[in-house]
C-alpha cells in the first residue's frame, strides 16, 4: 500500500494583517504552517499504513522553506518526503500547480506504484479546492472528493469503499485503485509523532526536485507561463456608502430604543413586517 499525501505550506492566516494605508499584506513575521486541512489527509494515510502496512510519501510544491513542513510530516510518521521546488514554478495557478504535482507523482510512481493520492479539502490561502481534482484528471485516477470515511480496501480486487459527503447526504462509493481522495475536515485527529519519528525526521535526507527532476521538459506548462488565470488588482472591500442609522432616544432606555427601532424599520420596510408576522405563526 503506497499513499502519496500532497501538503501545502501556508501562512497562518489568523495572523495575517493588512496594512491599513497601503492595503498590502504584511507577511513579515507571519509564521508558516502546514495547511490545516492537509493534516486530515496525512492522518488518514498513516491510519491505512497502520492497518495494511506500506509506505506514506509526502510531497509539496513550494519554496525551499517548505522543507520545514515536510519534516514535520516525517515526524508524524511519514516515510519519505519530496520537495518540488524551482523558480519556474512561481506564480502557478491551480492548473499549473496540478501539472507540476502530477508530473512529480508520475516520477514517484516509476520507483514504487502509487495506490492512493491524498489531498486536503482545500487550502486556507488560495482556498480553491481545485488542485485535488486537477491531479486526479491529469493522472487519470478516479476522483473521490470530500471523503468522510474509508470503509474497506480489498487488495486482491484492488477495490476501495468510501463515504463521501455529497449535497444533502452521504454517498457510499466503490471504486478501483489507484484513486485520489480529498479528505474532509474533522474526520480524524492528527496523532502526535513518537520520539523515534522525531529523530528520524531531523536526519532524514529530503529529496528536492527541480523542474527537470520532476520530469517536466517544457518550462511553459508550469508557473506563471502555464497558468491561464491572471491575477489583476488586489484591493480592499468598499465600505457601504451609508453608515447605519443609529437609533437614539432622549433617555436611551432599552425599551424605548427598541420600540423606536421597530417603528422605523417597519415604516421603511412594510414587507418585512408582514414577513415577520407570517414566520412567527
Amino acid at each position, binding site marked *: 500500500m503506497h499513499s502519496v499525501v500532497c501538503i501545502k505550506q501556508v501562512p497562518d492566516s489568523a495572523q495575517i494583517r493588512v496594512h491599513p494605508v497601503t492595503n498590502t499584506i504584511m507577511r513579515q513575521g507571519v509564521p508558516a504552517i502546514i495547511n490545516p486541512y492537509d493534516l486530515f489527509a496525512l492522518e488518514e494515510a498513516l491510519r491505512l499504513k497502520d492497518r495494511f502496512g506500506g509506505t506514506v510519501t509526502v510531497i509539496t510544491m513550494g519554496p525551499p522553506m517548505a522543507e520545514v513542513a515536510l519534516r514535520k510530516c516525517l515526524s508524524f510518521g511519514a516515510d519519505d518526503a519530496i520537495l518540488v521546488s524551482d523558480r519556474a514554478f512561481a506564480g502557478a495557478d491551480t492548473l499549473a500547480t496540478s501539472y507540476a504535482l502530477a508530473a512529480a507523482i508520475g516520477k514517484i510512481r516509476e520507483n514504487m506504484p502509487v495506490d492512493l493520492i491524498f489531498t486536503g479539502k482545500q487550502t486556507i490561502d488560495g482556498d480553491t479546492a481545485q488542485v485535488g481534482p486537477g491531479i486526479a484528471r491529469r493522472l487519470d485516477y478516479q476522483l473521490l*472528493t470530500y471523503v468522510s470515511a474509508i470503509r474497506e480496501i480489498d487488495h486482491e480486487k484492488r477495490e476501495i469503499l468510501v463515504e463521501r459527503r455529497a449535497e444533502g447526504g452521504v454517498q457510499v462509493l466503490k471504486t478501483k485503485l489507484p484513486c485520489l481522495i480529498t479528505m474532509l475536515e474533522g474526520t480524524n485527529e492528527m496523532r502526535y509523532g513518537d520520539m523515534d519519528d522525531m529523530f528520524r525526521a531531523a536526519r532524514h535526507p529530503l529529496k528536492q526536485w527541480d523542474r527537470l527532476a520532476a520530469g517536466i521538459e517544457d518550462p511553459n506548462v508550469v508557473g506563471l507561463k502555464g497558468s491561464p488565470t491572471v491575477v489583476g488588482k488586489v484591493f480592499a472591500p468598499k465600505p457601504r456608502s451609508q453608515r447605519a442609522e443609529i437609533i437614539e432616544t432622549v433617555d436611551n432606555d432599552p425599551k424605548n430604543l427598541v420600540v423606536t427601532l421597530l417603528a422605523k424599520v417597519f415604516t421603511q420596510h412594510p414587507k418585512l413586517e408582514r414577513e415577520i408576522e407570517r414566520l412567527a405563526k
Partner: protein
Amino acid sequence: MNEPVKKPARKKVELDPRFVNYKHVWVFIEAERGVVHPVSWELLGEGRKLADALGVELAGVVMGPPGERTRQICGEAFHYGADLCYLAQDEVLRDYRNEPYTRALTELVDTYQPEIMLLGASTLGRDLAGSVATTLATGLVADCTELVIEADSRNLASTRPTFGGSLLCTIMTQRHRPQMATVRPRVMAMPDADTARSGRIVEHKLAIIESSIITKVLEFIPDAQQDKPQLAFADIIVSGGRGFKKQENFQLVWDLAKVLGAEVGASRPIVQAGWVELDRQVGQSGKTVRPKLYIAAGISGAIQHRVGMDGSDVIIAINNDPNAPIFDFAHYGIVGNAMQILPALTEAFRAQIALARRAG
C-alpha cells in the same frame, strides 16, 4: 508560489485563435435526484447580466437520467432567465459521479463552445468544475463574489476574496475558453421566476456506457432534515458574537430567535468556544446567508463575518462600541448593552406579533 504575483500591466492579450468561435454564456444547472440546487437559479440571474452585456445567449446545461423530471428542469431554467438549454439525458447520469459528468460536460463544451461557464461552488460544483477545467486546460476562478464583463476586452473579470477574506482580487482568463468561475450559494441574488418565459432545448446524445465507468454508487444516505440548521435559506437570522461573554448570556439570542421563528447564527469565536454548532457560523469560513432580516448582537463586524452576511436585506446591529465596524455596513444600529437591548427587543417583537394576531 502563493503570491498573487504582480504582473506588469500587460497591454493587449490576444485570445488563442483556437477559441475565436466560442460564444455565449452557460450555467451548469445542478440537480441531484431531481432537485435543483438554488445556486443554479442564482447563477442564471447573474449569467443573464453577463449575456446581456455581451449581447449573446444564456444557456442552461441540464444533465440527468432519462425521464420527464430532467426535461422539466429546462422549463424552470427558462423561467429564471435561460434562452436555451442543452439537455443530456442518460442512465449514467442518474447519480452524480465525477467521471460521467466530467466526460459529458467536457463533450458539450467541445461541441457547442461557450465563452463563459459558471458553476455553483457546492460540493458537486467544485468537484465537477475542477475536473472539467483541467480537462479543457482552461482557467477556473473559485468562489467569486462579483462577475463583470470588461468593456474593452469583453473578458470576464471575476472578483474573489483572498487571504481569509480581508482583501479582494480580480482574476481573468484572457487566452483560453471557456472562462470558468464558481460562485458560492447565496452570494448572488435569487432572480424572480417569470413563468411566462420559455426557450428552446438542444438535446445532446451521449455515448457513455456504464461498464466504462469505474466508480459505482452503492448507497445514498440522506441527511436527517430537522436536526441541521438551515441558515443559508433562513428568512430571519439572529446572530450573536463575543459581546455575550458567557454561554448563559447567549440564551438571549435563542429567545429572540424563537419569538421570530428565526435561525440562530454566530461569529466564529462563538463556534470555536463550542456554544453553538459549526453549521451556525456565518462568514468566510462558515455560511453565506441572505435573509430578509439579520440581527447582529455583540458582533464587531470583522470582514470575515461581513462577507457572509452583507447580502442581507435589512441588517440591525447592536453593539456597545459606537465605533464598531459593524455600524459601517448595518442599516440600523443601537449603541448599547446587548444583554439589555436583546430582551427588550424580544418583548417588543412579541408584543408586535401578538397585536398582529389579534388584528387577524
